[in-house]
């Protein structure tokens, strides 16, 4: 296997329980640079739980997640440096302006902050008219855009996106699709859940269906 197709993110025999209920078990996945894993399933089938496990928030009840061949629990700092997670909650503070939010989230991840680049990114995401407003005054979709700006600035190799299109209008959805394509072309990886159609024509997409009676499996190379 050459370096282009060797999987960076892998998981083996992953199991997750919530309370007494088994959400999934025996789940396997392998994701190489440029590939997308679309996690699908109804409400309450464990999509968010799986994404959180992959992000390293919480431990699986069985199995392990590996990044570059190492269990993520053992290479926490390298993994978190190369991974960005966009959750349901945007993780931005209402009291701060969009650029301030980006500055603080940068500082917390120990990255040098480039204000010009942050402004450019915010403008690119269509926020040029709300740069001097606290995020409290922004709409739901605009706040989602601020969170997406933080994601872009993270320069992460792996994106884990939980419903990235929630609250976005058609222009923003097209924009996000474009951003994802760029990310994949640059050798990035993407794990995402979405109930909306995500147009990723030309990308190497694996589908993972959660909530089936049989253990859900996603083998590398299933398109």
């Amino acid at each position: 296997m050459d370096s282009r197709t060797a999987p960076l993110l892998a998981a083996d025999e992953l199991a997750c329980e919530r309370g007494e209920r088994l959400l999934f078990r025996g789940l396997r996945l392998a994701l190489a640079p440029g590939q997308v894993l679309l996690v699908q399933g109804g409400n309450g089938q464990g999509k968010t739980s799986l994404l959180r496990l992959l992000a390293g928030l919480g431990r699986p009840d069985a199995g392990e997640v590996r990044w570059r061949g190492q269990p993520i629990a053992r290479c926490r700092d390298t993994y978190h440096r190369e991974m960005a997670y966009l959750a349901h909650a945007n993780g931005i503070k209402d009291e701060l302006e969009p650029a301030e939010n980006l500055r603080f989230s940068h500082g917390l991840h120990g990255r040098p902050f480039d204000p010009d680049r942050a402004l450019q990114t915010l403008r690119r995401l269509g926020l040029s008219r709300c740069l001097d407003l606290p995020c409290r005054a922004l709409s739901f979709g605009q706040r989602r855009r601020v969170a997406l700006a933080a994601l872009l600035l993270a320069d992460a190799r792996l994106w884990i996106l939980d419903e990235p299109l929630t609250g976005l209008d058609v222009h923003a959805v097209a924009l996000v699709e474009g951003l994802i394509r760029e990310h994949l072309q640059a050798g990035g990886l993407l794990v995402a859940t979405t109930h909306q159609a995500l147009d990723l024509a030309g990308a190497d997409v694996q589908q993972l269906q959660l909530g089936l009676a049989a253990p859900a499996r996603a083998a590398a190379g299933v398109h």
Partner: protein
Amino acid sequence: MGRFLLSVVRRDLTLAARRRGDWLTALFFFVLVSSLFPLSVGPEPQLLQRIGPGVLWVAATLASLLSLPRLFEDDHRDGSLEQMLLSPSPVVGLVLGKVLAHWLVFGLPLLLVTPLLGLQFNLPAEAIAVLVFSLLLGTPILSLLGAAGAALTLGLRGGGVLITLLVLPLYVPALIFGAGAVGGILSGTGAEAHLSLLGAFFLVSFTVAPWIAAASLKVSLG
């Protein structure tokens, strides 16, 4: 980790500056409670001097309980706590940064108004100095132990009540040694013994509480 800690402190201080109501409430509570006592007990200098240190210490502990439940709660609700846990830096750094910011926002103003409140209780200058020093050692203990309690009760229903039940007993040694130090000065036995014990208690909470808080944050968000 030092830079991470500083950026947590900077962030929390900026947020506190934008949301003044939160910490001003705790400060006003402290001032009001300790001013109510001289008004209700009556103007007897001897009696006031006797109860003064204890009243101020109790008011400080209660004021800290007022501000603690929100230490992690707000960040938990808007998802930024999750993002901070995903930082490459250790979670203990996050806890220490939050505790330091909490102390700067809550403990420091308390220290500044304490001399004025001490005058209400007819405390001599020497006793006021010891009182401020005991609070200087003691308020970080309140922030540290409180952070462990706040992390343990994060996301629970009725967390505010639970944190009181959980943390208040732990505050007792600080309360005894802190108020005892001032009492010692007033009765002429000296304050060193009490202050040393208070310092030891500070060191213990400083070494233990952040780890407990970090571990419980990981569990609460896992």
